[in-house]
């Protein structure tokens, strides 16, 4: 028990150290750009957690990011680089938008159908990638990038073509959905409980699925060694397809949440880069969903808080993005450095033995 706790602490420590170090490096960078570090830190925290509404805003960034992370953990567990997650988010958003525009039914039915459609849209897009990968031998990175381009192209076509605003051709998006099908928001918190709830369910669900079920065990076996898993009787091709479909479904829900709770319309950049940011978060979390969820929250805090840097310190707007980039880089570097040290320690120990 004690050794296990020590082990956990051993793997945890690098990340615990890496995050503050990264934050310090990021603040140093901002300090060079004339932002007083302590005030910057205070603004970042106040701007994202300083009031009920701000916490709500941060949770609304966290929800789609957590869904994307959950999607990615599933495919990473199966040994797949699902770079196409952005496209799957977009596909989910398109499908949900279609329902919001076309279905006339009681609002609750429309909203539920938007989620179902988003799930199906994302899963279908990932399924296509799965078929290309599993049957066609196309590497999932290339297939995923290609399908993301196609999905983005489809949104632009829809926004400028069939779904354009009357008399307007602009990539700024479709008409707003009817107000009654906007996902309900708690006014005091400016939060859509549905969106955040789905994020939490996805995180917990994926955790349980991968840790506590036979399905998860087989998926992990497939990811750790396809040939070995096959010899043990795991139908690996089918499991790879399951991974794609499940991942796409979760990404599609993120897409439905983004149009239903955030934009209330379809915009070309609907995925908001949450898919790509999700990849970084999941890498930082070593593919573990229970680490990805808090790291995603950290990035949501930075993303929301950095708006304040412009509003209150009059910093250039690109510095927020640079700050986030430096954080990721610093955490990766610190993680890599720790790993190298661990390897060196192992080697020395081996030499001594």
């Amino acid at each position, binding site marked *: 028990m004690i050794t296990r706790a020590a082990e956990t602490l051993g793997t945890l420590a690098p990340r615990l150290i890496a995050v503050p170090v990264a934050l310090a490096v990021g603040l140093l960078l901002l300090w060079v750009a004339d932002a007083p570090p302590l005030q910057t830190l205070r603004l970042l925290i106040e701007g994202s957690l300083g009031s009920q509404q701000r916490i709500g805003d941060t949770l609304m960034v966290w929800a789609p990011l957590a869904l994307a992370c959950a999607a990615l953990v599933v495919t990473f567990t199966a040994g797949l680089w699902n770079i196409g997650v952005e496209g799957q988010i977009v596909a989910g958003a398109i499908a949900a938008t279609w329902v919001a525009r076309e279905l006339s039914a009681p609002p609750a039915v429309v909203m539920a159908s938007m989620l179902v459609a988003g799930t199906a849209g994302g899963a279908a897009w990932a399924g296509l990638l799965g078929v290309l990968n599993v049957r066609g031998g196309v590497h999932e990175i290339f297939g995923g990038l290609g399908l993301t381009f196609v999905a983005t192209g489809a949104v632009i076509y829809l926004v400028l073509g069939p779904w354009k605003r009357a008399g307007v051709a602009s990539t700024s998006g479709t008409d707003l959905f009817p107000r009654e099908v906007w996902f309900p928001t708690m006014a005091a918190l400016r939060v859509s409980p549905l969106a955040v709830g789905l994020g939490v369910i996805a995180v917990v669900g994926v955790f349980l699925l991968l840790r506590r079920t036979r399905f998860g065990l087989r998926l992990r076996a497939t990811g750790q060694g396809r040939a070995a898993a096959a010899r043990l009787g795991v139908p690996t091709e089918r499991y790879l397809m399951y991974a794609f479909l499940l991942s796409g479904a979760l990404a599609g829900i993120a897409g439905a949440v983004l149009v239903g709770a*955030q934009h209330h319309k379809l915009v070309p950049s*609907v995925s908001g880069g949450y898919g790509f940011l999700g990849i970084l978060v999941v890498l930082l979390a070593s593919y573990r969903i229970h680490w990805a969820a808090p790291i995603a929250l950290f990035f949501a805090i930075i993303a929301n808080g950095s708006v304040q840097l412009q509003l209150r310190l009059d910093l250039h707007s690109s510095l927020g993005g640079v700050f986030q980039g430096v954080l990721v880089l610093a955490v990766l570097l610190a993680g890599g450095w720790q790993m190298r040290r661990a390897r060196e320690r192992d080697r020395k120990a081996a030499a001594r033995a």
Partner: protein
Amino acid sequence: MRLKRVILLMLAPALLLLGAACSSDDEAAPATPAVAATMADGEPLKIGMILVGPRDDRGWSQAHLEGAQYAANALGGELIVIDKVNPADSPNVTIPQVVEDMIEQGADLIFATSDDMRDGILEAAALFPDVPMIWASGDNAWADGKGHRPDLANLGNIMGEMEYGKMIAGCAAALQSESGQISYLGPLVNDETRRLVNSTYLGARHCWTEVRGNDVTDLAFNVTWIGFWFNIPGVTLDPTQVVNEFHANGTDVIVSGIDTTEAIVRTGQVAAEGRTVWAVPYDYEAACDQAPEVCLGVPYFHWGPSYLETARAVVDGTFAPTFRWIGPDWSDINNPDTTAIGFLKGDGLTEENAELLDTFIAGLADGSISLWQGPLNFQDGSPLLAAGETATPLQIWYMPALLQGIEGAAAAN
């Protein structure tokens, strides 16, 4: 030993930070003029400025920012600025959130400066009915307008009568063009942009036929729309590529209608390679500086005077949500303190053409040249104005299609 060095290296920034933190209260206060306007709360006037593009775009957004700075400086007020507020650059930033933030910081007046902010600023105005706001280029406060929202008693509109600026731009293009091929680099398609493309065409046609005495059939005028107010990689067409295509197809004057400076920048490069080409940028007074030798001139906005009037009304407590569509000061269209739009002639314009252009501007000023005059038909042959008719402001503002003689999509329906 190595570990120690690494730790030292890691600590160095922290130490530096500590040093900086101790001396971080040196934020210089901005110099305030002698007559600082104070609000009821005893604080100086604070203006919140929401920009759609980069604050230094040398185009639409920078023109708005400098307009707000003009107002703030005159009243000793302060500015709170946020730029790049659009779904592509800031996916998690909404207008109501930004507005709330600015109000929390003490903003007494808020400017939302893009057509793209329609949904957001209407929502924000309803959420904070006590805070005066201006939606530039919008129509919610126009009692006769299609988008009238009488319920929003705190949201006014300001727009310059850029039709005149664009007519002058079109005239300059037609005066200087050797090939008779003029291309318009369009942003997205809506009432406003159709209005401005049509204005450019009317100016070009007038100067091509009436001033130069050419046949109207020898004038080719086409428009290509990129899809948004500025380049969003992967989403809009790349304006630089569009400019290249214009040049490849024989165009020698490009008139820009987008927020940024690609048309003049790329045209300057092409001219440096030895081609005879010109450009007319847009929005920002100093836009010609990007490539002065190919610049025929720039129609631009001076938001300063109207923003100052609005700010003053807020200080005096007389703010009213009016719809203002403000023309140039015809006595001097480049007077920074009086005009809402202007046209600054560029170095590329020949002396002779500059004189002809001045005559054209004088004609617009005294009303002897009136271009919104029938007969005018749309591309599909349907009439905008019958012979002898003059267009009403409503007809001009809500321009449903492109005029006959223009090649390009109009997205009309």
